[in-house]
């Protein structure tokens, strides 16, 4: 259970960054931290003690870890890259318009 709790603590560090930071770049990095923690938690959940990676090497394989969360997390990591690129593009555009990364100063949401 200790590893689960530590992984959740990593998620909460990211949540703290989203809640308390005013810098938009820090907020992007916090969302990235939350993504790391979510992916890692799924893989921790599928780990089987004493098992090997799910690749068949010989005729008589031993116990192997769960391949399903690995496949879905593989998908999730790639989507995370697209999301990060989209967030970075939004922030670059906001910087061009307002000249600051401070969310307390970006208030005029008119065209």
């Amino acid at each position, binding site marked *: 259970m200790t590893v689960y709790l530590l992984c959740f603590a990593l998620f909460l*560090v990211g949540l703290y960054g989203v809640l308390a930071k005013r810098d938009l770049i820090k907020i992007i990095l916090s969302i990235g931290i939350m993504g790391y923690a979510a992916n890692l938690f799924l893989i921790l959940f*599928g780990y089987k*003690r004493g098992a090997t990676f799910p690749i068949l090497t010989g005729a008589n394989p031993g116990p192997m870890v769960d391949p*399903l969360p690995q496949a879905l997390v593989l998908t999730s990591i*790639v989507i995370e890259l697209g999301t990060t690129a989209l967030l970075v593009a939004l922030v670059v555009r906001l910087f061009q318009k307002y000249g600051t990364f401070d969310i307390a100063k970006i208030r005029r949401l008119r065209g």
Partner: protein
Amino acid sequence: MPVETWLIFTLGFMIFGSIVALELKDILSSIIAIGVVGLGVSMSFLFLQAPDLAIVQFLFEIFALIILVRAFIGKENHQLEASPTNRILTVIGILAVLVLFIVSIPVFKLLPPFGEPLMNVSQHYLDAGATETGAANLVASVILDYRAYDTLGEVTVLFAAILGVFAILRSTAKHKAAGGSHE
């Protein structure tokens, strides 16, 4: 040494790195600290017997670092001045996170213990994956055969995200004469 010891070490390292990245003033240093955290995730995937994921996470780290550095370097004139609101926000954030952590401890007690997964569906993938799909790598057999629609959806989301990036970063409007706005 059991795998938990390594995992506790890497997770503690990652939590420390994240806090450092969030609290540093210099933006380049915090981007690099986030890169170190991502490499910690990659190492944890290796300990958890997921080599494919470790490689993908490593590549993700490199691309994310390139994107972030390319976008934000040279824009360091954004030193935020400290304000009382900022300090109140920090205290409220830390309190909220601590309360959430304490409240969620009973939930983690209900989960199956570490190292003993349920594996109802995936046992079939492990037993019959090689004969049904012919792939030696069972992760590949899941993403490309059993759950191929999921991969199709992933590619669609990625395509939509890239389209969004180009739509946001486009500097000139496409039909200037047709639209009513003159900006």
